[in-house]
């Protein structure tokens, strides 16, 4: 299967990918126009505290008197934003480092590979926790920066491997023999062939960012005044929501994280199938034996 333009078609043709894409689309809409999903347009508006679900509040209100459903809807934006930003930035870093490692060759390659491997074995979560604690994890740029720093290496390694396998592919030599410049070869001949790997890599990083961000917020190293799912969980946890009849305060954001994560994972799962035709599902017909 051609890695590039076929992706969209392949996603639509793959049940799991389609499910993932639809879920993701809903989250994207909620992030862009949360107003569509709730009548309360200020997630911090206060009502009576700890109302049960129903009672005019779909999931009830929390100990702060906020409407949990509204919080959930408005929390989508930050969670998604972090995922996408980290996904994009880390992808760019891994492309630059991975592909140039493969193309530099020699000492440059060795150094970049070493850098990649070092970042790969350095424990990410502890590092994030340390950096977040001291650099002010609450600040979005810091958070994104930290996630990018710890998130790029795996993708870089994969991209390097792929680029290495391309390095001696004849179509690159064919382009060179045609008279193309090196920059053209890298940007227009190599990158397009790695589209599905880059996409899979992006999804992987986004999932990682989503879970890590939520984890950081949860243990209280994020920005607790942000509207995000991790923050909701943080507050729910510190307010003993599970024990005080506010289960939805915990279940809803966790479920949202899980669903968004699942949409990434499903898409990624599908990308595996798209990238490797052998994995594609086959229909089995009853055969006379």
């Amino acid at each position: 299967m051609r890695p590039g333009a076929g992706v969209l078609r392949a996603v639509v043709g793959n049940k799991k990918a389609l499910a993932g894409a639809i879920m993701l689309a809903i989250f994207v809409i909620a992030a862009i126009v949360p107003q569509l999903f709730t009548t309360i347009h200020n997630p911090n508006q206060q009502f009576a505290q700890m109302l049960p679900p129903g009672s005019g509040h779909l999931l009830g209100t929390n100990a702060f008197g906020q409407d949990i459903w509204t919080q959930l809807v408005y929390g989508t934006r930050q969670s998604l934003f972090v995922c996408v930003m980290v996904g994009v930035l880390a992808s760019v870093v891994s492309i630059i480092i991975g592909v140039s490692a493969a193309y530099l060759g020699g000492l440059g390659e060795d150094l970049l590979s070493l850098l990649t491997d070092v970042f790969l074995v350095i424990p990410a979560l502890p590092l994030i926790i340390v950096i977040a604690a001291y650099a002010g994890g609450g600040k979005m740029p810091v958070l994104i920066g930290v996630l990018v720093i710890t998130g790029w290496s795996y993708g870089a390694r994969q991209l390097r491997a792929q680029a290495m396998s391309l390095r001696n592919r004849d179509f690159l030599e064919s382009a060179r023999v045609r008279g193309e410049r090196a920059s053209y070869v890298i940007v227009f001949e190599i990158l397009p062939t790695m589209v599905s790997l880059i996409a899979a890599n992006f999804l992987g990083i986004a999932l990682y960012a989503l879970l890590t961000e939520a984890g950081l917020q949860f243990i209280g190293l994020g920005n607790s005044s942000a509207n995000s799912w991790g923050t909701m969980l943080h507050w729910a946890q510190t307010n003993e929501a599970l024990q005080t009849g506010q289960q939805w305060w915990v279940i809803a954001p966790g479920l949202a994280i899980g669903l968004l994560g699942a949409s990434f994972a499903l898409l990624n799962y599908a990308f595996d199938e798209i990238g490797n035709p052998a994995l594609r599902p086959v229909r089995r017909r009853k055969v006379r034996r």
Partner: protein
Amino acid sequence: SGGGSSGSGTNGSKSTSLTIANVGGTTWTCGFNPFNPSVSGLSIGFVYEPLVYVNPLQNSKETPMIAESSKWSSDKKTLTFTIRDGIKWSDGKPLTADDVAFTFNLLKANKGLDLNALWSSGLQSVEASGNTVTMKFSTPSQPYFYYIADQTPIVPKHIWSTGEAAKNPVQFTDAKPIGSGPYTVSDCKPQNVRYQANANFWQKGKPAIKTINYPAYTDNSPANLDLATGKAQWGGQYIPNVDKYYVDRDKTDNHYWYPPVANVQIFLNLKQGPTADLAVRQALAYAIDKDQVSKIGVGGQLPSSNQAGIVLPTFKDWYDQAAADKYGYKQDPAKVKQYLAKAGYSTAKPLNLSIISVSGYTDWEAELQEIKHQLQPLGINLDVQNIAGQTYDNKLYKGDFQLAYGSQTGGPAPYYELRQNLYSGNTAPIGQNASSNYSRYSSKKTDALFNEYPGADDQRQHAIVNDLQGVMLADVPTIPVLESVSWFQYNTKEITGWPTEQDQYALPAPYAVPDNEQVLLHLKPKG
């Protein structure tokens, strides 16, 4: 069955045991050095005792412990303790005035142990003779009585003058502490410290509870849960929605009582930024609905503070109601507008402020969230920055903030907290470390009041505190928001004798030392 039975099976006896649920944040190190602040809460009150117990809740009412009595000279520069006869250390050796003098001189020799800075604030000598110990001060030092008599645990000379302890008392682990208190450490694991009644304790027949388990809780939730289910009987932390979570689980036996002890306040930088302008500070003081902050931040479990800085009802005798009424600080949008206008702010030019707080202090975070929401419609944008404790401290001490959310340690009378807030000796120029006056308030007149207080009589002391309240109200150097309390949950199923609002014989929180000793001595098995 609940109650203390969980611990009773292990030591074979049928006697009731007590389990304390108090979040320490870490596991135990099995060190009990009472001068090491990270572990002193495990030894003071249990193993080590003070000379005299001073009750902050009852106007500094004194209960003699190791010292039978104490006496100030009339110039309040000499303090004499008479040491009780017949007290034995838990290893059987007698406790003498020598031990007491040794303890204080140990602090002198090792500055790292002198946590209350006794020797750098006027204490000049400590000498024992017979059964008395005499202390000499360079200035009248009556307020230091609290630190000397109540806050300094007495340690045995025969242990601390030899070996490991003598070599480096700061790093001394003190794994097997020898003290004079009601308990000894019978077993220590990183997960749990077990105490056993001290057979040599000088109060006959006490303590009535023979075994105590003090598990290490690293997080609130499990501690809360153990309290709610009755597995632990003595709690000392914030339980969200305590009525529903805790009391409702066992309406007859689960109780709580939260006596206020100090203020949680907003420190306002008086030296730089918008808050150097009194009008801005006043606008802020009129902008906050403290009751609502309490309701949202801690579910109403903390009382709101008054601008005078007097913790109520604890120190109600000191409160100057008339002065407070004159200013009438409470949320008032009109006044906010007026003062903001005076300072030159308007809707076109809103006031932008940032406030620092400690990340991980979730109650503070929630309170600031609420304050931020309150200020917004009033034209004040508050940027809440939750930063790591160390960074926070660094900024707080150096004056590198506009607003800072924080609290003082307080003491048994309003004087202590007010002095921490307002005395110029406790401050420092921006960029240097201030020890407690973070707002950097300084006024000759106020300083004179503080200097006069230690030597003054009771009536004059009240007058001085009234004047100091006036400073708080007029100059708004800090804005007290909520009163911090001594967190206290208790279970009466198998144990009685707990302090209550009616019988406030000690600060009730298990982490309040040495008040915990008073509680332990009052407790007894039910029936």
